[in-house]
């Protein structure tokens, strides 16, 4: 059996698995946002950054190799993750108190786990338009963290190409595949996996918010 060492624990892996895959299989999760088992690794959020044999690497994209020494829960890496989370919060507009994803939001959950008590950095308050054009689906761009899970789900699971990430740096935006630029003019359907894979509250089914009571939400 091939193994890696994660924070001193010996973890088995099979060929083709990433460091993240085998860590999750061994119930030694590494913090992550843009990764979801079954989806092509993307490596955009960098929250799963670990040190492998002394070098930084994202656990979700790095294939496991025999004898790797992986550090994850060190003070250095925890501090780095906290910084990444703070930057994610301030570069969008995240108002947890009235967000229907609160309690089931992976960004919020990661922030709680990281001990984040404030955003630390000055918020950017970017101006992003909401797309409510579709009768069943809403895109609240304020909350998008550009993890591209919807892009991958639409392309790889739904067999469509509804979403993509466009632009660079602060101008990065989630875009949809229609001439008008509106969701209503795409071929998306409310049953599509892309609608339900969003880790934050950016893509929502209309009129369904707050149906899960507090105490029964994903991370309660």
């Amino acid at each position, binding site marked *: 059996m091939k193994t890696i060492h994660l924070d001193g624990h010996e973890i088995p892996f099979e060929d083709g698995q990433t460091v993240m895959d085998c860590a999750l299989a061994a119930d030694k999760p590494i913090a992550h946002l843009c990764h979801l088992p079954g989806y092509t690794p993307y490596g955009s959020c960098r929250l799963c950054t670990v040190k492998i044999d002394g070098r930084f690497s994202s656990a979700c994209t790095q294939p496991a190799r025999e004898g790797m020494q992986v550090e994850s829960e060190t003070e250095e890496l925890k501090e780095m993750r906290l910084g990444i989370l703070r930057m994610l919060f301030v570069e969008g507009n995240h108002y947890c*108190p*009235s*967000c*229907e994803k609160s309690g089931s939001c992976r960004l919020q959950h990661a922030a709680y786990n990281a001990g984040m008590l404030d955003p630390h950095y000055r918020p950017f308050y970017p101006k992003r338009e*909401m797309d*409510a*054009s579709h009768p069943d689906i*809403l895109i609240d761009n304020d909350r998008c963290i550009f993890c591209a899970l919807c892009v991958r789900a639409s392309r790889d699971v739904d067999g469509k190409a509804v979403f993509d990430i466009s632009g660079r740096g602060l101008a990065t935006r989630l875009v949809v595949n229609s001439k008008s630029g509106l969701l209503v003019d795409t071929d998306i359907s409310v049953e599509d996996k892309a609608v339900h894979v969003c880790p934050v509250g950016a893509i*929502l089914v*209309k*009129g*369904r*918010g*707050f*149906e*899960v*009571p*507090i*105490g*029964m939400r994903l991370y309660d």
Partner: protein
Amino acid sequence: MTRIAIDPLTRVEGHGKVTLQLDEENRVIEARLHIVEFRGFEKFVQGRPYWEVPVLVERLCGICPVSHHLASAKAIDRIMGVEMLTPTAEKLRRLLHFGQVLQSHALHFFHLSSPDLLFGFDSEVQQRNIAGLLKAYPDLALKGVRLRKYGQEVIQFLMGKRIHGTGAVPGGMNKALSIDERDRLMKDIDDIIEWADDAVDLARDIFLSDRSYLDFAGLSSSFLSIVGEGGLHELYDGRLRCTNAMGEFDFDGVADSRYSEYIREEVKSWSYMKFPYIVEGKGMYRVGPLARINNCDRMASPLAESRRKEFASIGRPVHATLAYHWARMIELLHCAESMRDLLHDPDIIGEDLRVETSMGREGVGVIEAPRGTLIHHYRIDDEGLVEMANLIVSTTHNNRAMNEAILSVAKHHIDGRQEITEGMLNRIEVAIRAFDPCLSCATHAVGKMPLKVDILDHRGERLCVLES
């Protein structure tokens, strides 16, 4: 001229200040309650999806979030074409709101106002607070704390949190009350009723103990509230009734969605809080416990109904500002009795929580919040986003009346005096507190609590400032 400012006001919910303008002979020529918090919710709710609104607007307030949540949910129900909730959903919402009113009334009477009433308006300022009450009247203070705790527990069971949870969703509720939760609430309800009954005794006895209380902060006005069928006292749903100072109807049986035909709002440059008035005659009116007890013809709960009759025996309508406390405690008892009845109702543990909805454009939700009639009005666009919001909050209705009450106290207790004492100024706060104003609600603000009094002389220079 001299101007006196009370800044900040204390033991009220929110931040505000009072200014008194005196002439050269120290006679009060003007009194103003300034609300210095900034209003914003009506604006930033625009563009948000309709189903988010009940959870967003409850952040208006940490004391009565449930009232905002439910008023908003009722408005959204109307937008969504909901004619009637399931019996379980309606009863759960009512139970939730009784919990809200109970905890708020207990907080106001025991924590904020009873120190004035038990220790006296001129007593040591250090004593006039809940800590002083706990020391001098430990049993009473603890009952007050436990009454509030019970209301908070009801809220927690139904909304997941004591403050700012989730519960009402378009067309119903998101959670049933479990049998275990029902039984836990039932265990203490008899004590709650008994303590609430004692509180009515206390409030009544205090009010009747001093004849000057009848005229304190005296004013005469119309009263606005919702009432149920046959004039039944209502907190959750009903039709608008307004009685004039003589107790005759200004209007009655008005559908709450037509509120704007009967009420308008005026703006003044010196306050962020608007000044609503009755359209016909531009009349001042009051809302809240005093208005509701004056306006209703009966109450559904037997102990509270007998107390209401006792209250009405001193006059109807009762105009005395300090009678607010007595009326508030009658409502406290009514909430406790009504919760007991609901807890014994088999529907309360039902599982049928929601009805189907279909999207419309506009809706009004009106509820009787602890402090009075609360109006939420929204219009949404074709995509389901809010394009217009109008909120008329309980405290706002009382704005004119509070200004009148302040003027009345100032004329009676400060007019012509050479020396202004803290006790005199506390009387102004006592008058304001009787209304149980929530200044952060009234302006939908983010801000701090206390209120300040400013005194300016006849040249417009500040003579003194009193603040906590």
